[in-house]
């Protein structure tokens, strides 16, 4: 009975996130299958296969052997970045329910209850395993709904569940070694990034195939769903998470609750410069997150910039591919400035998610009770406006970082690109940021508990709608609600001034609504 209650408690902590991810996976996989058909199916893909086998593309998007079925296309599409995102999600979920619970003290209550720490840990692991399994089932379901082979769909779904479980395992071990939760999450992310880079090197370097066997992202590729089928690799995708879980369990039973062997220093010299105003503190709160994002986006930008020249050259050489890109609505990618413009529009989703998360901090602080003392002295309007302004400033800095590193990458790759083109592309991408920031502020004021999950889901879905609408010939009203529908590819196109002004006005209106509600509502934790 007690075990069942523990399990129910643990599941409650992960269920919203698990269900949202599962729904996005079902919809995303099914839509990807539809995109495959809309792109000409096997015949259309055969035309671009040589391009996708370019080492640079394989390094980025994963090894591709065949695209003869929609299932193979999905597994290639999801094998790289989506797998990394899912593993990261698993790791963050694991550090939240373990180290996060220790940070806020709830683990103390669980640890002293009769079932004990080990059973509480086991209950958390069970909930996390169900979340991983759900992601796998959702992937399988999306494929089956797209009329793909059941056996291959199950194999690939199991692989995705394994990758999530691996992220969970990494998170569980990191949570035992490091504190607070943010540090533990960073440790897990570093491990997963290293594993992803090993896959990048393995796929992008001839003669380094052996490296694929050393990384979970390589194991997922080696599974060969919809290709050569090697289910034996599943044993690693299941076994390694199990080993990591056993290690984490042993570590947690041998250490004191709330303590970690590699905890951050608890003392620090005071840095007071940014603490003299609401605006200064808003900047300070967002600075560490912005720096982390800047690092990740800089790496991505320089790599993509470096690959631009060869990708564009390949595309140019193949008329069929040019036609395919046009059908997908991204025909602009056949020139270097156009590719950068397209890249900037893609990166704008990341900038929008960053803006959402940063303005939602107001809701997080309110729920934690941290605003009680602050808002007994400071103006509420100033507080939420400072959050908005500092988020916009941080997003602009991220935009500049992306622009600089894309430009550096493109020039390193030997292609010409003017600073003006990069500036126009980045400026165009930043147009969605005020809208996302205003949206984040409004959602966090109305429903702080679910602001990030709901907001990020809606933003991602609206981006995907804009991506999938042209190739799938969805009716105009479906994509009309997506802000990305109104972003042109700049360059080569010029900025659509009217749309830009409307998007900015909507952003300001959302923020204004958030300010009005925040000023009038009760401040309650």
């Amino acid at each position: 009975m007690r075990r069942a209650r523990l399990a129910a408690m643990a599941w409650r902590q992960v269920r919203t996130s698990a269900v949202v991810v599962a729904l996005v996976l079902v919809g995303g996989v099914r839509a990807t299958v539809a995109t495959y058909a809309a792109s000409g199916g096997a015949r259309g893909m055969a035309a671009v296969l040589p391009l996708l086998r370019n080492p640079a593309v394989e390094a980025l998007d994963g090894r591709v052997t065949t695209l003869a079925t929609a299932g193979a296309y999905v597994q290639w599409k999801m094998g790289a970045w989506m797998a990394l995102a899912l593993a990261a999600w698993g790791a963050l979920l694991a550090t939240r329910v373990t180290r996060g619970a220790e940070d806020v003290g709830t683990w103390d209550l669980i640890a002293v209850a009769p079932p004990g720490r080990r059973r509480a840990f086991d209950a958390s692991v069970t909930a996390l395993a169900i979340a991983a399994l759900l992601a796998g089932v959702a992937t399988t379901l999306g494929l089956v709904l797209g009329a793909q082979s059941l056996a291959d769909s199950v194999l690939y779904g199991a692989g995705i569940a394994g990758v999530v479980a691996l992220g969970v395992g990494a998170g569980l071990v990191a949570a035992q070694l490091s504190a607070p939760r943010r540090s533990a999450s960073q440790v897990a992310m570093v491990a997963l990034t290293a594993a992803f880079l090993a896959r990048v090197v393995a796929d992008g370097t001839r003669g380094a195939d052996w490296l694929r066997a050393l990384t979970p992202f390589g194991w997922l590729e080696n599974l060969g769903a919809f290709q050569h089928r090697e289910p034996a690799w599943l044993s690693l995708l299941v076994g390694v998470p199990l080993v990591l879980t056993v290690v984490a369990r042993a570590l947690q039973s041998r250490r004191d609750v709330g303590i970690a062997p590699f905890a951050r220093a608890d003392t620090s010299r005071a840095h007071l410069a940014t603490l003299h105003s609401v605006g200064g503190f808003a900047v300070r709160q967002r600075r560490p997150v912005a720096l982390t994002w800047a690092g990740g986006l800089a790496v991505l930008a320089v790599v993509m910039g470096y690959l631009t020249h060869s990708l564009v050259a390949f595309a140019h050489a193949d008329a069929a591919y040019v036609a395919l890109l046009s059908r997908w609505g991204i025909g602009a990618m056949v020139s270097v400035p156009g590719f950068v413009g397209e890249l900037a529009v893609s990166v704008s989703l990341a900038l929008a998610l960053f803006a959402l998360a940063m303005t939602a901090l107001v809701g997080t602080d309110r729920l934690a009770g941290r605003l009680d003392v602050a808002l007994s002295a400071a103006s509420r309007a100033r507080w939420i406006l400072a959050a908005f302004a500092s988020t916009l400033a941080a997003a602009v800095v991220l935009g500049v970082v992306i622009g600089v590193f894309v430009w550096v990458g493109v020039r390193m790759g030997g292609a010409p690109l003017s600073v003006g083109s990069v500036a126009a592309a980045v400026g165009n991408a930043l147009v969605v940021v005020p809208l996302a920031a205003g949206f984040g502020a409004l959602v966090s004021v109305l429903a702080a508990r679910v602001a990030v999950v709901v907001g990020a889901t809606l933003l991602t879905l609206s981006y995907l709608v804009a991506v999938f609408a042209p190739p799938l010939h969805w009716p105009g009203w479906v994509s009309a609600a997506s802000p990305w529908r109104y972003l042109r590819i700049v360059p080569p196109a010029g900025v659509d001034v009217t749309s830009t002004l409307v998007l900015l006005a909507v952003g300001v209106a959302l923020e204004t609504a958030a300010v009005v509600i925040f000023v009038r509502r009760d401040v309650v934790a």
Partner: protein
Amino acid sequence: MTTPALQAHGLGKSFHGVDAVVSLDLAVDAGEVVGFLGPNGAGKSTTLRMLLGLLRPTTGSATVRGHRAGSPEARADVAYVAGDVALWPQLTGAETIELLTSLHGSCDPRYRDELIARFDLDPSRRVRAYSRGNRQKVALIAALSTRAPVLLLDEPTSGLDPLMELVFRECVLEAGSRGQAVLLSSHLLAEVEHLCQRVAMIREGHLVRVADVEELRALADVEYEITGDVGDLAGVAGVSEVTPLVDGVRVRVHGSPGPLLAVLATRPVSALRTREASLEEIFLSFYSPASTS
């Protein structure tokens, strides 16, 4: 007539149709330390949060030195300490104090440094590494060093050790003597008894009494321990309870002791000891199930 430092008039708050505070009238003058007592869930924190402008009153109004609670002028005059203070875990103690005093807009740096020493706080530690008591010290130091004219303290000593509680008492008495108004919500009745001239008692959202501590005592029963063979005192006017002792009796008297003393004058009494009710006993008499039914 001077404007009260803190005034609530017909103040009420409902949450989803449930009354948390009902038509509360209260005034605290400059230099006055007023205790705010009541059991858990009585409405103390809700009242304080309305006085801070964090909650919007459903009825009535509240002012701080004549300014509407929550207005910029009122916020500039109030410093607040919450019972279980939540702070940003990545900041150090020194950074948190700097932030909170900067948000308030005033700080006496010399007094702040003095308070850090008196409360024995290591300000270089990050908030996440502090115990609950140390987090409470950070909030207290930040609030007191603003020297705000009005201090709203919601169970401010929860988590403090007895030594630090004494330091807190000294600081509140100093604040009162400097002319600062203090409204102190606390479950530590000895603390309230020691610090407060007046006490406001709230029950189920209703303010049931505002009185001087001495006035409350006068309302409460007084206990007498009488040594000697004094016979039966049960029938004496005002005597509510008689407990036999080895060498005498203990009687509880409500109201004037005159009738009891008149009877004792005729009996062989060898010793008489008086004990006034503590605030705790008064509190219990107000909130015991018998008095609430």
